């Protein structure tokens, strides 16, 4: 074949390649997996191998096109560029450069020439550099070729745009997730028996059960209260409580603080003050309730169980009885 014709053909073919590649760069990305792409590519290459010499240009164009096509997801365009190709060796060698399998067989000087020929457009340069990298790194390992090509191709076509968005989104989401996990930890401490459970779903389930059980307990206790004290004449009690509330709140509580140390003395003081207000016997129930309540509340504030309440109640009653008498 004459060299000049070949050069003209070279340039024409390369221009066509550039045009086709540019056209296909603008096409949308498909959902072809990398494996599928590679399989199609290799199948196509293997088909073309026996007729290598006559269709070298075709191979070059088609391989480049198929490469970009598959990265764009439009394999049909590879056929579109077929009539453009013509026969010449350098194109064929360039085509063989595109093929990873053939790279190993190629001698280095030839491949370098082809690289210089093929390097025209940005896309071609990218593809060639990628191929160079793959040639250097992947010695017979096609999987690494796939792995390298896929992220690079995607990154350039798609992820470059998404990259900016995901940063802010991912940051916000991370913050939100941390907040949620903090609150879940706090809830874990509140709800008894949740320290063993890990995972949001189980935790939520436990919390829901706990809230439902608490609400049921409130209902049950309110029914019990309604049943237990139907006959208390509580006018005096209301006066008593009003009197207590009108006083500065610290005083009776100070009494109860001392009450923790010396139950009897504090009680006496409190009972004296209350007995002045309310001589009636009915208030005894309510005031004792109040006393026990405050005592228990202070104890509960420390996180103790109701057991000390029982003992406290034992101390309470004889004093009250004495007062009553």
């Amino acid at each position, binding site marked *: 074949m004459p060299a000049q014709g070949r050069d003209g053909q070279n340039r024409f073919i390369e221009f066509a390649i550039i045009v086709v590649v540019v056209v296909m760069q603008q096409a949308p990305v498909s959902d072809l997996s990398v494996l599928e792409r590679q399989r199609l590519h290799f199948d196509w290459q293997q088909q073309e191998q026996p007729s290598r010499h006559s269709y070298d240009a075709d191979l070059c164009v088609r391989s480049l096109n198929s490469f970009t096509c598959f990265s764009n997801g439009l394999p049909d365009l590879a056929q579109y560029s077929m009539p453009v190709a013509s026969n010449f060796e350098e194109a064929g060698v360039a085509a063989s450069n595109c093929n990873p399998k053939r790279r190993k067989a190629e001698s280095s000087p030839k491949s370098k020439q082809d690289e210089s020929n093929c390097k025209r457009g940005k896309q071609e340069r990218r593809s060639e550099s990628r191929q160079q990298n793959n040639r250097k790194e992947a010695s017979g390992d096609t999987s690494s070729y796939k792995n390298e090509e896929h992220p690079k191709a995607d990154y350039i076509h798609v992820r470059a745009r998404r990259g900016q968005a995901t940063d802010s989104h991912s940051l916000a989401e991370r913050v*939100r997730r941390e*907040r*949620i996990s903090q*609150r*879940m930890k*706090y*809830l874990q401490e*509140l*709800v008894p028996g949740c320290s063993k459970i890990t995972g949001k*779903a189980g935790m*939520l*389930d436990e*919390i*829901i059960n*706990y*809230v*439902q059980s*608490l*609400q049921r*307990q*409130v*209902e049950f*206790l*309110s*029914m*019990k*209260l*309604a*049943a*237990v*004290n*139907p*006959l*208390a004449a*509580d006018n005096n*009690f*209301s006066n008593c*409580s*009003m009197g*207590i*509330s009108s006083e500065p*709140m610290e005083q009776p*509580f100070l009494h109860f603080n001392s009450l923790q140390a010396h139950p009897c003395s504090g009680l006496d003081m409190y009972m004296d003050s209350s007995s002045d207000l309310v001589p009636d016997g009915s208030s*005894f*129930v*309510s005031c*004792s*309730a*109040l006393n*026990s*309540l*405050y005592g*228990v*509340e202070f104890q*509960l*504030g420390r996180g103790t169980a*109701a057991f000390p*309440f029982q003992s406290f*109640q034992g101390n309470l*009653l004889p004093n009250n009885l004495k007062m009553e008498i």
Partner: protein
Amino acid sequence: MYRRSFKDTKSSLGSPNPNFSKPMVALRFLRALSLVRCSGPGARSPSYRARGIRRAAYACMAASAGPRRAWSRALLRKIRRRPGRGLRRPRAVIRRRRPVGGGDPLEVALRRLVPGGGCMEYCRLLEEAADYVKCLAMQVRLMQTIVDSASHVNSID
């Protein structure tokens, strides 16, 4: 009677006291209890009184929690809706700011349980749920001690 008790609790709402003041809750509740009992010890059925006691319990809990909590406000609103039917203020209340289409059934259940949980974000929902659980647990303990003391005193007599 219920109105009076709720007005009393309402007047003391201005204090930004957190719910750690257990004696306050106790006082409020006992006062409300007395008012409930005053209304009619023999005339009303125990179930009616039980309902009134339950309402009083929730009202005291919400009142002592403070107006800063979303659940306490929602709870008080729900309780006071019945008595104040004709006296509603013409305030434009923005109720549903973001009706959340909850896909998680657990989340939906939690929203139904916690008062005022329909319009909150998930983070806030968890926060409010934590506070609500704390107050509920305290209220339950309070009522338990009252019942215990009352029954104990009665049994001694």
